[in-house]
């Protein structure tokens, strides 16, 4: 019998325990990677190629404050500005959903391709949308979820804005990091609300990457000490600002992950010790046969490391299979979009597992090393 065979035979002689150990490691690692993915989803801004060129302009007081429409002409004249569109969150209710799974924004349809170039849709659909003031385009995810087709109507009941809108779908786009939004004519909303002359935010595209910081500065300076001071910032810092509002929830999820790892090490470590304690007599026999201490160490380590790795394979692999195969957007009613198990998170999962494998073998190894052969042979338990 080879050494490897010996280790495997030993590990599997109590099949039930082996299975339970592997499963408990698997469950804990599944949970750990899920938490890490959740944390990533909450804290990492979605990136796309165009984002670096885009600038978000909001009211300096806060995002909830509006901006006057007259600012558009001023921003258009600022050097370095390639395109600008108003972008106003409508926040309407759809059917009986209090918080619909899709957001609705009013914008200037002509500027869609100039400012949000990553949104792709057939040219005829785009032109149909531009031509019809009471129409909208929707993201492909929303189209799938509600089984919307071109020509269908969406009725939105205003909560933030004092108007109800009925929009005809003229196009379906895809290619943005979150293909769910409903986009419609700002003009149409203005008219329905009684020409309030205000917008939520401005989104600007700079002419080149080098000009982005300059444009940001120019826009901020332009409206300083006016009745509607603005905060222009790159799309990235705009999104990061959102994330910082989460506050302590991030720390909370981080601490839970730590507790999970700690519990995992504790429980699996004790199971390993239990398995070794049962075998004290045999280990003593091995010692008597002339096996050296470090060889016995290796037996214990290999067994516990093997269990931990198998557990990681089942837990992390299971999480990977689950999150790549289910439609997370639909399952969480639009709360999460990407929920991606990145290679980095996988590496963390396996890293924790190998650490666990090593730590779990330390305690039994120490007691094994301490025991004398005679004492070991006498053990009954």
């Amino acid at each position: 019998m080879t050494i490897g065979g010996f280790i495997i035979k030993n590990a599997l002689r109590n099949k039930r325990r082996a299975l339970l150990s592997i499963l408990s490691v698997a469950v804990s690692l599944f949970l750990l990677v899920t938490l890490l993915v959740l944390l990533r989803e909450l804290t990492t801004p979605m990136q796309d190629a165009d984002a670096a060129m885009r600038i978000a302009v909001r009211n300096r007081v806060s995002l909830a404050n509006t901006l006057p429409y007259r600012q558009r002409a001023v921003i258009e004249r600022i050097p370095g500005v390639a395109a600008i569109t108003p972008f106003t969150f409508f926040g309407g209710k759809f059917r009986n959903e209090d918080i619909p799974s899709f957001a609705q924004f009013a914008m200037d349809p002509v500027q869609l391709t100039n400012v949000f170039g990553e949104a792709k849709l057939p040219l005829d659909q785009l032109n149909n949308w531009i031509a019809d003031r009471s129409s909208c385009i929707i993201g492909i995810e929303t189209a799938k979820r509600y089984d919307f087709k071109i020509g269908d109507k969406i009725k939105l009941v205003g909560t933030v804005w004092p108007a109800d809108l009925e929009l005809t779908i003229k196009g379906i786009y895809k290619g943005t990091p979150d293909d769910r939004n409903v986009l419609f004519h700002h003009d149409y909303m203005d008219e329905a609300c009684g020409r309030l002359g205000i917008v939520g935010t401005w989104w600007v595209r700079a002419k080149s990457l080098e000009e982005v910081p300059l444009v940001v500065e120019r826009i901020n300076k332009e409206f300083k000490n006016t009745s509607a001071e603005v905060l222009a910032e790159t799309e990235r810092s705009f999104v990061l600002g959102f994330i910082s509002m989460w506050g302590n929830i991030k720390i909370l999820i981080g601490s839970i992950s730590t507790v999970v790892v700690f519990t995992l090490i504790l429980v699996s470590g004790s199971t390993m010790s239990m398995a070794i304690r049962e075998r004290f007599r045999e280990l003593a026999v091995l010692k008597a046969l002339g096996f050296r201490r470090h060889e016995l160490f290796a037996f214990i380590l290999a067994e516990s490391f093997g269990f931990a790795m198998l557990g990681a394979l089942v837990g992390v692999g299971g999480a990977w299979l689950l999150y790549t195969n289910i439609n997370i957007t639909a399952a969480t009613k639009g709360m999460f979009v990407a929920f991606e198990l990145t290679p980095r998170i996988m590496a963390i999962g396996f890293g924790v597992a190998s650490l666990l494998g090593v730590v779990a073998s330390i305690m039994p190894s120490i007691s094994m090393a301490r025991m004398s052969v005679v004492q070991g042979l006498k053990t009954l338990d």
Partner: protein
Amino acid sequence: MALPLKYNFHNVIVRWRSTLATILGIGMVVAVYVLLQALAVGLEQNSANTGDERNYLIVRKGATSESVSQVTREQFRYLQYMDEIAKDEEGKAVLSADTMVLVSLPRKEGNGEANVLVRGVMEKGKELRPQVRLVAGRWFVPGNREVVVSRRLAARFQNFQIGEQFHVPGADLKVVGWLDGGKSAFDSEVWMDTDEARNIFGRENYTSVLVRPVDEVAASKLKGRLESSKQIAARLQRETEYYREQTKTAGPIRILGNLLATIMSVGAVFAAMNTMYATVGSRTREVGTLRVLGFHRHSILLGFLLEGAILSFIGGVLGCLLALPLHGYATGTLGFDTFSEIVFEFRLTPELLARGILFAVIIGLVGSLLPAWRASRVPVISALKSV
């Protein structure tokens, strides 16, 4: 039916080394469960604590929350002279037109910015909300650019100490006092004069109006009048009800807590099972002896189940003890109802602790069911022969 109770109970203590890890493991699961639920409870209590039964909130028709509502000055003038609204000794109507503005302000320790809810109130606004007390400094003087901030927010945002000033576009606001909302939603607010707030933030309209009707009959009359009136077209809701419905933030936390607890409990069941199998396995001879002494199979089964329950009960109590120091600890996050920073506390209620312990005992029972069944099936002769 006689149970080997003493035997099982002593086992937990005598073999503490092998049971300790399981107990700790279950303890951790319970601690995480209890803490997350305590967050949700804290948030819900915050909303439930807010408001006065006698008050009614008036918002624009169709507005789902105060922050998206608008009440024009003209509408307010109509309201002021309605007979249904209570009057004070001087004959003034007891109502306050509030102006709510979300202001993005820097957090302490460079933790980025967060939205803070600034509420402009009228003189009566303070009387209408007796749960809001001034705990330091003085109230703002109408017409001055002064604010009173919540003591809890003061711990989280820059320049919120009394005497300090913070900048908002177009003005510097001076902090002249601290308020305490008595663990209500007002703990997450900054208060100032309503017309001053409208001026500084360029609001033509008020946000909402809080009124106190003469009595319940007047309240329902007022409701009918407002909802049918063309000039006002507003919605009337009891203040306490309005806040009780603000549960958009607590919901997801509760779901996260339940989800985590479910997954972790599966892991804990495996661990408990492992421990119990090992205990049963190493005690085959003892089980045999018990059988010879006359204990029935069922007694053995129940005895071991009980042992698992005792084990996990200790774990559950331990978990609660681990979580308990966080009771009353204030934390904050983005509130989905107001889109602003809300401050709330972990609330570990007795009911919640009981649920945590019950949860632990269920884990223990499920985990020890199979091992206990196995123990009860051990043939007496072979059990006694085994080493």
